[in-house]
């Protein structure tokens, strides 16, 4: 285990990506992901890597597409408005079965919105990162250490399933400093026999493509891709459960808001309210099995988000009416306080305390 150092979330993400074997970063400046790209611009030239500042988010994601097609581990990072611009490229990456890592350090929206932390891109990340039938892998860290720990796995799963992966964090996690250990990973990058990096006279040409003019062919390809998604949904759900076993009120929160929800759960326990927390780590696949199980035992489920209520849809689908699901959130860059969340828990507990 390597020594702990104090790092900003954004910088920790960048170093973790380097440790995971990524040597190709393409980006465009935007707040609050700034330090990530700056870190890459400093480190990449020293280790024979590529940091390239593109002319736009659109260009950056397409550079990622090209680099991924050529078979290397490639990534980009941005914040909410920039991810909207990347959505075209993400759809093409998914339609071309190309792996990559996209980091979204979320800020308030819509439009230019603000630059303070937000979780209002949940729907975009998990439901509609671009046009067409497709999914991407989405992981939501809640600490700087977890930002590090999820990166290598995100790259590996992107390679394994040949699809884009996203780390969905926010301005709070990106900007905060925490002690973190970044292990030097023993990286074994997989052979990519599908890559377009020259046939070297040894095989027929490889083609990376998302166009299928015959609807029957396109339908078959999409259906095959969805079989892969089914496997992922069955095997890759990730979550952490905290004090849920005997909980009457189960909170569901991810990322930054899960830290606040956890504090509120602790305070509620001190008041004698049996509260617990499910913290989704993978947002797609959503940990619906764990949430569904909570629906069997809890009296109330409360989703806490830094948005007007997005993940709560997935919670309701998983709970499927087995118990009431309510929502509390702040948005626009406002971080809910533990006291506000505790108040919601107390309301659900029926004013008994």
């Amino acid at each position: 285990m390597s020594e702990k150092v104090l790092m900003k979330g954004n910088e920790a993400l960048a170093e973790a990506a380097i440790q995971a074997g990524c040597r190709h970063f393409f980006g465009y400046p935007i707040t609050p992901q700034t330090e990530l790209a700056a870190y890459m611009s400093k480190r990449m030239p020293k280790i024979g890597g590529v940091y390239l500042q593109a002319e736009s988010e659109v260009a950056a994601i397409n550079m990622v597409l090209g680099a991924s097609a050529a078979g290397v581990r490639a990534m980009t990072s941005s914040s909410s408005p920039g991810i909207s611009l990347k959505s075209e490229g993400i759809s093409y990456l998914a339609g071309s079965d190309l792996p990559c890592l996209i980091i979204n350090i979320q800020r308030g929206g819509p439009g230019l919105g603000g630059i303070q932390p937000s979780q209002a891109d949940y729907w975009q990340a998990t439901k509609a990162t671009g046009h067409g039938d497709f999914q991407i892998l989405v992981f939501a860290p809640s600490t700087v250490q977890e930002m590090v720990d999820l990166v290598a796995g995100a790259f590996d799963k992107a390679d394994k399933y040949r699809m884009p992966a996203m780390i969905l964090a926010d301005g709070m996690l990106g900007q905060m400093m925490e002690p973190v250990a970044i292990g030097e990973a023993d990286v074994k990058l997989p052979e990519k026999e599908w890559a377009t990096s020259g046939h070297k006279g040894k095989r027929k040409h490889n083609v990376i493509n998302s166009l299928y003019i015959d609807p029957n062919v396109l339908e078959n390809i999409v259906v095959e891709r969805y079989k892969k998604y089914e496997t992922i949904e069955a095997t890759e759900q990730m979550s952490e459960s905290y004090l849920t076993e005997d909980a009457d009120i189960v909170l569901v929160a991810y990322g930054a808001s899960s830290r606040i929800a956890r504090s509120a759960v602790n305070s509620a326990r001190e008041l004698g309210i049996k509260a617990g927390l499910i913290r989704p780590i993978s947002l797609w696949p959503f940990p619906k099995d764990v949430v569904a199980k909570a629906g069997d035992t809890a009296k109330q489920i409360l989703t806490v988000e830094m948005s007007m209520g997005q993940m709560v849809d997935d919670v309701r689908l998983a709970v499927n009416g087995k118990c009431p699901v309510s929502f509390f959130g702040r948005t626009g860059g406002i971080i809910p306080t533990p006291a506000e969340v505790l108040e919601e828990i107390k309301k659900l507990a029926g004013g008994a305390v």
Partner: protein
Amino acid sequence: MAVVFEKTKGLTDAPLHYCPGCTHGIVHRLVAEVMEELGVLDKAVGVAPVGCAVFNYDYFSCDMVQAPHGRAQAVATGIKRAVPENVVFSYQGDGDLAAIGTAETVHAATRGENITVIFINNAIYGMTGGQMAPTSLPNQITQTTPYGRDTNYAGYPIRVCEMLSTLDGVALAQRVSVDTPKNVMNAKKAIKKAFENQIAGKGYSIVEVLSTCPTNWGLTPTEALTWLRDNMIPYYPLGVYKDKEDVK
């Protein structure tokens, strides 16, 4: 019997889908022959555009990537930066390169991205059925300029080679045509130079090829060649607009 001519190994056996009289086929052949002559087919990676040439990923025998509309040079940048030993080219039409992909074009050029760009200028959107292109001529009738391109209203055509020639990152910007055998030979020389520049690490090279679209121009193949000569070449003069070798 001695073989005196063979189809280039740079093309697959897939039949081309292009309309009769379209010059894409000629340019495909020139690009493929050049890559074969330079011995780079085994490490070449092409980027197909969105537009009529999108299916060229089936025609070129080297590795191919199909890019989103206008993004071919960003994709080519990613490929080249990932594996610099690859010989990377994009093949794009006027809508792809000079309208939706203008930013990607200008910035790949100004970065001096060490890639080769083949630019087909036929003054119209072909695949979508003949709309006004960024290079449609003043007064040209298209599906979306049914009364002719009114420059007061729809603006002026872009002269891409002239525009890019101002950028320091550009090693070669040359406009050619494939309307006559002589011009075809000149076009091949230019394309060869654009690939040689990349192999020598000289930076961004673009060859603009004036091309025909008889279907959407509403002309026969021979009329289309005459129209190109009479209308396009005067507005888009052939020649070398930037050659770094001349600058020194």
